[in-house]
C-alpha cells in the first residue's frame, strides 16, 4: 500500500481520507517555535465534493488513493450517463451525474476532458480550461443595460449562461473559461 508522509503533502495530492478518495487543496506547516509541528490541510472529498480541514502531526503518514487522470473525448449523453472514449485505444467509459456534476454545462461533443479514475472508475470529469461554444440566445440590442457593469447574459449551446459584452450576437461562437465561467473572447 503506497503512503505519503506529511512532508509530501501539497495541493493536488490524492489520498484516502476516512475511506474516501480525497485531494489536498492546501497544506500549511504550523509550528510553535518551541513545540509540536503540525500539517494543517484543507482537503476535498472527491466523492462528495465537500472540502474540510484536517490536522496531522508532522511526520504522520496517510494512505495514497489509487487515482489517475486520463484524457478522454466526450461522445454523447444518453439522459443518464455521459459517455467518453479514449482517442488512442477507443476504449469507452460512462460517467454518472456524481462524477460530472455542474461541469455538464460546459461539455460539448468531441471535446477532450480530463477524467479522474479511482480504482479504474470515473470519479471526476473536468472539461477543458477553455471551451468554444455557440451563443444560442441573447438580447440583440447593442444599447443593452449599462447599469450592470456592462455586458448581458447569453445562453450557450450546452445550456450554460455567461455574461458577454454587448456586441456579441446570437449564432456567434465565443471562448469561455470553464474554471471561472467568464467570457474570454469571440472565437
Amino acid at each position: 500500500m503506497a503512503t505519503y508522509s506529511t512532508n509530501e503533502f501539497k495541493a493536488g495530492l490524492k489520498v484516502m481520507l476516512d475511506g474516501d478518495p480525497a485531494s489536498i487543496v492546501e497544506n500549511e506547516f504550523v509550528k510553535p517555535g518551541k513545540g509540536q509541528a503540525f500539517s494543517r490541510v484543507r482537503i476535498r472529498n472527491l466523492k462528495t465534493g465537500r472540502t474540510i480541514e484536517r490536522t496531522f502531526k508532522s511526520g504522520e503518514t496517510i494512505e495514497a488513493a489509487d487515482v489517475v487522470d486520463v484524457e478522454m473525448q466526450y461522445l454523447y449523453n444518453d439522459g443518464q450517463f455521459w459517455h467518453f472514449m479514449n482517442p488512442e485505444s477507443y476504449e469507452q467509459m460512462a460517467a454518472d451525474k456524481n462524477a460530472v456534476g455542474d461541469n455538464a454545462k460546459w461539455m460539448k461533443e468531441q471535446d477532450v476532458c480530463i477524467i479522474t479514475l479511482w480504482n479504474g472508475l470515473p470519479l471526476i470529469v473536468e472539461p477543458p480550461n477553455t471551451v468554444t461554444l455557440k451563443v444560442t440566445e441573447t438580447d440583440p440590442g447593442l444599447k443593452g443595460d449599462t447599469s450592470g457593469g456592462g455586458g448581458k447574459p447569453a445562453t450557450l449551446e450546452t445550456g450554460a449562461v455567461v455574461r458577454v459584452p454587448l456586441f456579441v450576437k446570437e449564432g456567434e461562437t465565443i471562448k469561455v473559461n470553464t474554471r471561472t465561467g467568464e467570457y474570454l473572447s469571440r472565437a
Partner: protein
Amino acid sequence: MNTSPGPESDWRPSATLEVLKLRARLLQRLRVFFSARGVLEIETPALSGTATTDPALASFATHYTGPRFPQGQTLYLHTSPEFPMKRLLAAGSGSIYQICKVFRDGEAGRQHNPEFTLLEWYRVGFDHHRLMDETGELVMDLLAQSMSLQSPERLTYRESFQRHAGLDPFATSADEFGQAARMHGISVSPELVSEKAPDAWLDLLLTHVVEPKLGQGRLTFIYDYPASQAALARIQPGNPPVAARFELYLNGIELANGFHELADADEQRARFERQLHAREAAGLPAVPLDERLLAALAHGLPDCAGVALGFDRLVMLASGAHTIEEVLAFPLERA
C-alpha cells in the same frame, strides 16, 4: 511554493527590491536602538561541535576535516545562538545582541524557512517582565512607519487560553483537550485523536485557536508558561509552578520568545538529559551536550533575561507580506 517554474524564471529573487530595502532599513534601525542603549553587538559561531537537545528542534549536521581535526568532526549548524551568547555573558560581556542566520531542519511553510534571521539579545539585570517592556519598545519603534498600534497587552498563558479557547490549560486532561478541539471545529487525524501528551494538545489549541486571536491591533505578550514548556527559562514556584518565559504575537504571528534565563547548571544538565531521553524515545538522533555551556553556568551566569525575535517575520509584518518568501531574496526552493 509547490511547483518550481525552473531556473529561467526562479533565478530571480522572490522578494521585491522595495522589501529588501525595507529589510536593510530595519537592520540599521535596530542597530541604532541597541547602540543607544549600550548593548554590544557580538558574533558567535554558526557551526558547533554540540547541538540543541530540544526534541522540537532538528539541527543540520555537516562535517569538517582538516587541520585540528584530521580524523574529521561532525559540526552542527546552530538553531539559535543562545549557548555561546550565555558563555559570553558568564565571561562578563554585559548586555549583548546578535543578528544572525540560524538553521532548522524540517521547517518550511508560510511562516517558516529552514534558514532564517534571528535577532537575539540578553539584558543583564533584567527579568522577563522588564525585557517584555524593551521588546515592545523595539518592535513598536521598528513598525512605527508601517502601522499604528495601541499599547501592548500582557496575558498569562492561562488567561490567553481561558479568554480565547474557553479552557484552563493547567486543569484539563488530554481527553478534555480533544473535546475542546472538536468544539472549536478542529478535526484531527486518528493518530492525533489518541494523543496522550497534554503539551501536544496545548500546542494544537495554541496554534489553531488561540494564536489567531492574539496581537490584533497591538502587541500581545503571553507569559507564565506551563513548567513542562520552560525550555531554558527558570521556573517560579507556585501552584501550579510556571516558567518565566514569554512570547510575543502580532497579527496572530509568533514573533519572539524570551526567558528569565535559567542559571542553575545542575538544573540545566537535568533538563538536557530529560530532553535526550525524549529524543531517544521519539527515535530522534542523539546529539552531544554542550558541556562548555554547563561549565559557564557553573562558573556563574549573571542574572539576566534574553529573547529571540524572528527578523523575517518582523519584515513580513512591516511590509504586509503574507508569506516568508516575500521577504527573503532566495527562499529554500530558489536557494
